[in-house]
């Protein structure tokens, strides 16, 4: 709950420390307070997404959000198609990429099999592979994040 007391303390903190903006989010409630150039904070307090407006629908089992954790500064490599994910070119080969590995733009990161065709999936960006989000043989959908890269 964001109540008056919370807002009060926030404003005090802002004045004390000469902050210009504070965003606070708590269980769907939001407060934004700004102190502009002239030192005037403005508080925006938004309650949970108003009523029958499009709410966040609980994603069905396989319909995962494309980008699970966008806020960490990581960039996803999404699947360009529906199909089955393979981490390596053949069952006994080494995987295309591992966590911690540095990849170049255009480097193949996995294979997606769709209708008996094995498609090499290339990363559009370069960076360090921080996470591999799918496991070998798993079905993936269009736009689903496969691996997360720190550019």
């Amino acid at each position, binding site marked *: 709950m964001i109540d008056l007391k919370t807002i009060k303390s926030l404003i005090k903190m802002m004045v004390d420390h000469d902050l210009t903006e504070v965003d606070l989010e708590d269980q769907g409630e939001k407060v934004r307070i700004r102190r502009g150039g002239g030192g005037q904070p403005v508080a925006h307090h938004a309650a949970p997404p108003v009523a*029958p407006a499009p709410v966040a*629908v609980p994603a*069905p089992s*396989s*319909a995962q959000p494309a980008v699970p954790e966008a806020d960490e500064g990581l960039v996803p490599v999404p699947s360009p*198609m*529906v199909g089955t994910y393979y981490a390596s070119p053949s069952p006994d080969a080494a995987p295309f990429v591992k966590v911690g590995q540095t990849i170049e733009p255009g480097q193949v990161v996995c294979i997606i099999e769709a209708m008996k065709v094995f498609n090499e999936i290339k990363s559009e960006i370069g960076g360090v592979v921080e996470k591999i989000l799918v496991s070998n043989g798993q*079905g993936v*959908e269009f736009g689903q994040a496969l691996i997360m890269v720190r550019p």
Partner: protein
Amino acid sequence: MFNRILIANRGEIAVRIIRAAREMGIETVAVYSTADRDSLHTRMADHAICIGPPAASESYLNIPAIISAAEVANVQAIHPGYGFLAENSHFADICRSCNIEFIGPSVDAMRKLGDKVSCREIALAGKVPTSPGSKGKIENEEQALKIAREIGYPVMIKAAAGGGGRGMRIAQNDISLRSGLSSAMAEAKGAFGDSTVYVEKYISNARHIEVQIFGDQEGNVLHLFERDCTMQRRHQKLIEESPSPVLDDESRKRVCQSAVRLARAAGYFSAGTVEFLMGEDKQFYLMEVNTRLQVEHPVTEMVTGLDLVKMQIRVAAGLPLDITQKQITQRGHAIEARINAEDPANRFAPSPGTIQRWELPGGPGVRVDTHCTAGYRVPPNYDSMIAKLIVHQPTREEAITTMQRALSEFRIEPIKTTVPLQQDIMRNADFRQSNVHIHFVEKNMGIG
């Protein structure tokens, strides 16, 4: 019976199929484009798989993506709904070659009846009434002119692969036949990738009467009586009803039996619709066959008490039809109004956007099939139909009254819809007296 099926469609028909499957204890897998992430079919299905970006060509028409989704989800069958891939025999073929049942007719029957030229040939052989015209496709201009002079102007040029009025021209004389021929072929080539056309007598002041047929894989073919879809705007149906208010028992029997003959000749199974024009002479002329479930199937469901989608699924699973022709009767009168997100006051311009207020009609005699809810954003990428309102009452007069009452209860804001047009039609004296033809809305109601 299947344990799990995939629905290769979106919108109200995807919701309709999920409802049927759920009542049969069958798990459902929805596929969706990124534009439909929050759509009702996506959240109603047991599983949902994103298959591509908003453009239909990259999602709902993307055969590899849909087959891949079906394989990933391990389904036993795919229901194509209507539109998109529903009449694509190539898709049906791929499904079956991947050992996934296609919930629809055989590939052979789809090809035979889906192509208007070959359909016409089968009809002629089976004494199904067709309008006078070319036996098969037009090979050259001279042949077209010869046929036109034989049967007399006006004549109709039609694309073999056509539908929805595309690749269609009316010719009043040799000159307009020549120009119409080349423009129809070019349009057909562009729309369907096939420039084949044929020529037939133009039926003026016609009504649109179609027969719902249903077959199983053991060769049984039944009809579920007719629907009257004469109220159209630019070949797009606005109002459908069953029974037709202008058929007597004898002509009803005649047209229904013709449809069954045609379906039998093609070895047809699953749901299909044989569309006829009825001329001022009360004669029927075969127009085309739709080898799939129809948008307006609910009016048939209301008067027969049958569930066409469940029947399709059972037949696809190899079960025989469990009813006989005698057991199928028409009870009462049903009317369907298609509600589109279009602005009738502004040349039917599409009116996509987020629906803020969405209040449905209810009470006795009212059925609503829709995928919309308050907060739903109608995407600009697809068909503009947002709901089907179906009413069922003992008589046509009462059905019209209930439709008026139900239309007045619909509250949709802020997008524009065709509700006001449907209300105008219900009030129209000629419609109420069934004194209409397929161009009535454009010609007599001043709606172009």
